């Protein structure tokens, strides 16, 4: 394992301090927590937006704290949902009197810990609403399973609810737009290599020199198929096809996100993008806006994901609104 770290079991704490030290004009760390909040919280009258999850997905989530996006991000240990008390601290810190909205990725741990925090917050008299993001079409959605995972599409939800809150929307209005956005976003990822959890010290899984895995999760959870490495065009086709099959995008306007999982050069993301744009054009799907880069990673995993979000005028305006979050571009 080659990592630029001090102690494998202190990476999250040190990272959070490093984030606070990087952007002192914009954010701060809540003392003795792993919570990064906007410098000016609580913003009186504004609904507070809180997200978070396990660490190892940087810049998610702390990089999205800033005016127009999140008020707080709670970082758990690597790939481990944060604990309810940490989430509660975040909720209390950002409540400006009009309640707090939670953006949760759909994993058992995240859901449980955030819900416990919400109960504790409500016991303290804070209104809490939430949305559970489940954009990963690699996972079947059924009432007998835990349902689809939440992956990089979550970042678009952050942007949308953050803009909405900044405009002064109520908790209920934010909930409505969040539900709409989540219903309209789908993603799927693929990996060429594993990541290494610092404390585990070895790769989470093995992929052969000529293998790739389609549908991989951002914690190294398995995908749909493990197969021989294909060309960028074929990979783009496969990913786009899975997303397009899950939701009817025909004739609509979309936001496209091509996300790097950690080690994949941006060059390759642009090559994937070229093909994805072509596919969408051929299907008469109009691309309103494209995001390319590392938005939600999986430590040093090589691979990428493709996200499509169907847009209406409201969502377009919310995506376009300004934000000061350092990692959103």
């Amino acid at each position, binding site marked *: 394992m080659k990592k630029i770290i001090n102690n494998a079991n202190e990476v999250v704490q040190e990272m959070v301090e490093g984030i606070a030290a990087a952007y002192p004009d914009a954010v701060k760390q809540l003392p003795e927590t792993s919570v990064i909040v906007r410098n000016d919280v609580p913003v009186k009258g504004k609904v507070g937006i809180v997200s978070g999850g396990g660490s190892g997905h940087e810049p998610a989530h702390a990089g999205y704290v800033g005016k127009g996006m999140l008020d707080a991000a709670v970082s758990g240990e690597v790939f481990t949902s944060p604990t309810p008390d940490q989430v509660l601290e975040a909720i209390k810190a950002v409540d400006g009197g009009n309640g707090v909205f939670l953006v949760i990725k759909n994993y058992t741990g995240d859901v449980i810990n955030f819900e416990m925090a919400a109960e504790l917050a409500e016991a303290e008299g804070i209104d809490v609403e939430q949305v559970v993001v489940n954009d990963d079409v690699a996972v079947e959605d059924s009432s007998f399973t835990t349902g689809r995972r939440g992956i990089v599409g979550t970042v678009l939800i952050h942007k949308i609810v953050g803009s909405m809150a900044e405009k002064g929307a109520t908790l209920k209005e934010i909930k409505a737009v969040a539900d709409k956005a989540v219903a309209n976003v789908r993603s799927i990822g693929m990996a060429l290599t594993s990541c290494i959890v610092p404390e585990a010290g070895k790769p989470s899984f093995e992929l052969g020199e000529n293998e790739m895995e389609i549908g991989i999760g951002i914690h190294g*959870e398995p995908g749909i198929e493990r197969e021989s490495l294909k060309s960028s065009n074929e990979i783009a086709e496969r990913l786009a096809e899975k997303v397009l099959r899950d939701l009817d995008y025909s004739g609509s306007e979309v936001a496209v996100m091509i996300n790097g999982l950690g080690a994949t050069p941006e060059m390759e993301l642009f090559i994937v993008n070229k093909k994805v744009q072509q596919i969408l054009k051929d299907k008469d799907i109009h691309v309103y806006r494209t995001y390319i880069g590392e938005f939600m990673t999986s430590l040093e995993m090589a691979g990428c994901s493709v996200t499509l979000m169907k847009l209406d005028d409201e969502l377009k305006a919310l995506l376009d609104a300004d934000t000061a979050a350092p990692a959103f571009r």
Partner: protein
Amino acid sequence: MELTVKEIIAWLEISNTNIQENKAYLTELDQAIGDGDHGINMARGFQEVLNKVTDQEYEAISDVLKDTAMTLISKVGGASGPLLGTAFLKMSTAVKGQESLDTADFAAALNEAINGIKQRGKATEEEKTLLDVWSPMADYFSAVDQFSAEVITETAKDAMEKTKDMMATKGRAAYFKEKSIGHLDPGAVTSFYIFSGLAEAVKGGKN
């Protein structure tokens, strides 16, 4: 015999020892059908539990269990932290006011724990989770009137091993679908270490 504060603390101590010794193994199990953090999570959590409960004198079993619960809930995260934390919290409530527990008391507490886990995790038995150890253990204690170290260990081990052939439908292992079959559930293995820790404590293995 009945379980008193002394046995409960010994139980937690031995559980912690078991988990620390098997940290890497638990993580490997979670690498196979999860995200590779279970051993790390449990080792961190139980170490904190130990620090907490050996740091003070307890009068009531319920207080030991409550501190255990709050520590697991606030120091672990993930799925296992709040679920095991909830289990201990429900047990704490169930045994409030009791100075010692016989098998029936303990079974009642476990049943509360199981309800808590089910409510939080929205899972039921046979979904290849830690429930598949906790549930059989509750049944077992309901059916006996003695704490027998050997049978406790054996029952927990059996239950743990049965998770191998199950297909996961809840938790992260569910994403592996059929491929989860053939692997032990990490949370079930941790639960085995907890109940075999209880067996040792019953034997007076520690203290």
